[in-house]
């Protein structure tokens, strides 16, 4: 048996990169669940939209099938570069979130959870099918840039202890952590966040104080959607895109993340995402064929040992 080379530093750094994406996804899902007690199965579709909008903004893409192709459109996209995508994708996600809250979520706030699940799952299928039919079901190459902010990110950099590490992934870690920190501050340190936290426990009391919490709801939903779309862009910069990625790479990891972290908990989503990222990274670098199995086993174990999650209060959706 060949002794296994375990490189802890590399596992942690890769785990951090994967975990940052999980955390972004979990964060978006958990603030919507925690605030509105609304389970959004279309969260993966928002990731998908983020990835495809990123693709359109980032480069020109050649089509080989789909509705547009049948109308004679052979290339789509604006060739705007990654920075443009970095700006446009969260804005589009935010806008879609506002619309979704108003027209899909809000009518279902007082309905049973099963209805919420059905309507959002249906929406996810619709989004996936539209993308598949209009742009085509092809798998597209990832959209990682060569340079950003004047830095060449196509080559690995030499890091102390870790050794060579892809500089683009390093960039992803930095920007994802910045976005996570900003979101955390918005929830924990602003008046808006205070209203959201209060509303999580007793939204009528917030209204009785004279605060129009419905506006905060729209904002929370839009924020969660923007985070998912942003995660989609980041994900698409390191992995290929196809219409199926919404569920596998976003919806399921997002749910696993909040199960581990605790439903409705912001710090739980961050910690849970990072923890799962490191587990996946460790398994991928050692027994990669076991990675998925170990991931689900871990979450199952978590559900048995600590069903409320790392930071959960066990109160959401009671």
């Amino acid at each position, binding site marked *: 048996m060949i002794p296994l080379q375990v490189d802890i530093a590399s596992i942690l750094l890769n785990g951090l990169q994967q975990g940052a994406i999980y955390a972004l996804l979990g964060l978006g899902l958990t603030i919507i669940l925690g605030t509105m007690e609304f389970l959004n199965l279309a969260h993966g579709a928002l990731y998908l939209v983020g990835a495809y909008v990123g693709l359109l903004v980032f480069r020109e893409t050649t089509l080989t099938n789909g509705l547009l192709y049948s109308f004679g459109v052979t290339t789509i996209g604006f060739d705007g570069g990654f920075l443009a995508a970095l700006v446009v994708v969260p804005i589009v996600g935010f806008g879609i979130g506002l619309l979704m809250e108003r027209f899909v979520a809000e009518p279902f706030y007082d309905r049973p959870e099963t209805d919420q699940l059905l309507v959002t799952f249906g929406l996810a299928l619709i989004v996936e099918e539209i993308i598949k039919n209009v742009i085509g079901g092809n798998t597209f190459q990832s959209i990682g840039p060569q340079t950003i902010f004047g830095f060449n990110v196509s080559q690995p950099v030499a890091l102390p202890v870790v050794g060579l590490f892809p500089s683009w992934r390093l960039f992803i870690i930095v920007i994802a952590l910045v976005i996570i920190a900003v979101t955390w501050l918005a929830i924990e340190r602003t008046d808006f966040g*205070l209203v959201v936290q*209060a509303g999580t426990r007793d939204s009528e009391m917030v209204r*009785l104080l*004279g*605060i*129009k919490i419905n506006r905060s709801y729209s904002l929370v939903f839009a924020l969660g959607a923007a985070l998912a779309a942003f995660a989609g862009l980041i994900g698409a910069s390191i992995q290929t895109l196809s219409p199926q990625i919404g569920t596998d790479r976003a919806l399921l990891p997002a749910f696993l993340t909040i199960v581990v972290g605790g439903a409705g908990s912001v710090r739980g989503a961050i910690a849970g995402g990072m923890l799962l990222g490191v587990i996946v990274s460790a398994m991928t670098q050692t027994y990669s064929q076991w990675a998925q199995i170990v991931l689900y086993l871990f979450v199952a174990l978590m559900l048995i040992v600590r069903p409320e999650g790392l930071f959960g209060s066990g109160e959401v959706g009671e």
Partner: protein
Amino acid sequence: MSSDAPDSATDATDGGAAADATDDAAATESPDEAVGADEADRDADTATHAERATAAAAEGDHLLSVEDIDAYYAQSHILRNLSMHVEEGEVCALLGRNGAGKTTTLRSIAGAHPPEVRDGVVRYKNDDITDYSTEDVSSLGISLVPEERRVFPNLSVGENLHLSDVARNWSNVVGRTVSMDHPGMSTEEVYEVFPRLEERESQKAGTLSGGEQQMLAIARALKQDTDLLMLDEPYEGLAPQIIDTVEDAIARIAETGTTILLVEQNAVAAMNIADRAYVVDQGEIVFTGTSEELRTDEETREQYLGV
């Protein structure tokens, strides 16, 4: 709305305030025309006129008036044709047994749902606020301290209090500028009323004792621009010495001129500080009078309050 117009007309003549209202009405309606019209026409034409008169009268008389409201929880008819009013600057008690409709009355005034108010009018400072949202009622200066305190357990005492500042700041943002007779206290002033809260400032509200939570719930309301403070069973579940503290605080609030509508099952405690009382039973007002009158009315006390 249309159903209460005749009542308003009667009130207007009784109140003798029609003259005041004419000035208001002159801008939109020719006074000559109104005077020259015959009786029957006037009744119909001057509905708004009469309403304004009532409003003008109410300005002098009632800060809040609840007029013939019928409120429902789903299909259950909870309040039946209930009328009451609260005068500026008084402490008014609404008493009655558990389930009599006290909380429903407060929630109807506050615009909370449920209940659903299907008939009748709630008027506050001349305005028909029956269909106002909870948020809008609150920003008019009506604060409800609900049953069971309902402080936010996951926030610190300071954060709970800060939410009242947020409410004020945000309502300014959307351009609502209501002039308040009793602007909200600062956090420092609130801490003077309840020194205990200052000691607990950074503690999570969920870890406070019942009495402290009640203080926090009242303090939160005091920080709002409150002209009418509605307290729903503030003594419930509190130890006797804590009741004294809360009672002192309520008395001090009343001294500042803030109008208080106090809902209680504990009639004796409520009558200590109330000027006037209503007794409600099965959704109907069965007694109206001063606290003194209620004290001497043994029949009402025994039948409806059990004291």
